[in-house]
């Protein structure tokens, strides 16, 4: 399952902060539009490094699809920063 949303939250010690929701699924639109160029660039790089381009695409796709559920939280006395991929 591809990641759909990214949550970024920042809160300072003064109880001020913000929370942003990024609709990651909207990124598929430019990716699909640039897909031929991206594929060509990937093909050239993979052939230059002697790497199977199809395996590279499969690995990258697997990494992208396994991102949902990832979370990072850093808390200090001055700030709280949260990043979550849903």
């Amino acid at each position, binding site marked *: 399952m591809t990641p759909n949303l990214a949550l970024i939250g920042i809160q300072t010690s003064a109880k001020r902060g913000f929370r942003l929701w990024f609709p990651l699924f909207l990124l598929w639109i430019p990716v699909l539009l640039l897909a031929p160029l991206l594929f060509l660039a990937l093909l050239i790089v993979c052939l230059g490094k002697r790497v199977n381009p199809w395996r590279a695409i499969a690995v990258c796709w697997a990494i992208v699809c396994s991102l*949902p*559920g990832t979370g990072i*939280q850093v808390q200090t006395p001055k700030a709280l920063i949260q990043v979550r991929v849903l």
Partner: protein
Amino acid sequence: MNENRRQILEMLATEKITAEEAERLLVALEDAPSTANEGGEAEKPKHCAKYLRVLVEANKNGSPATVNVRVPMQLLRAGVRLASLIPRQAHEKLDEAFSKHGVPLTVSQIKPENLEELIEHLDDFSVDIDAAPEGDQQAKVRVFCE
């Protein structure tokens, strides 16, 4: 009603045992852990770890800081496959760099099936590191699966 209980009640009904003995057997049956499958009961499914958690609690000069990282196991599986993309000519250089830093790791031997076997045994995996305080600095690191 499981098989053992039925047998005890049948023996009581046929007067092979007394009521007192039947009661003792039933109590002993309740206390004993069940080890065999009975009546088609399904085994408890093995819990598979889904996330790798890393918790770091540090205290420097009186300022506490915590880092909480949660990584899906699927991401680890996909990350292992990255090793297959590394060109062969780079394997030797990577192995040399790892050994120089004291990490006895051979990149070419990292395979997805090895990671699967490791993940299967990660249910009870837990690492707790409590660094000895040095002056005003103290740190705790906890790594576990959930």
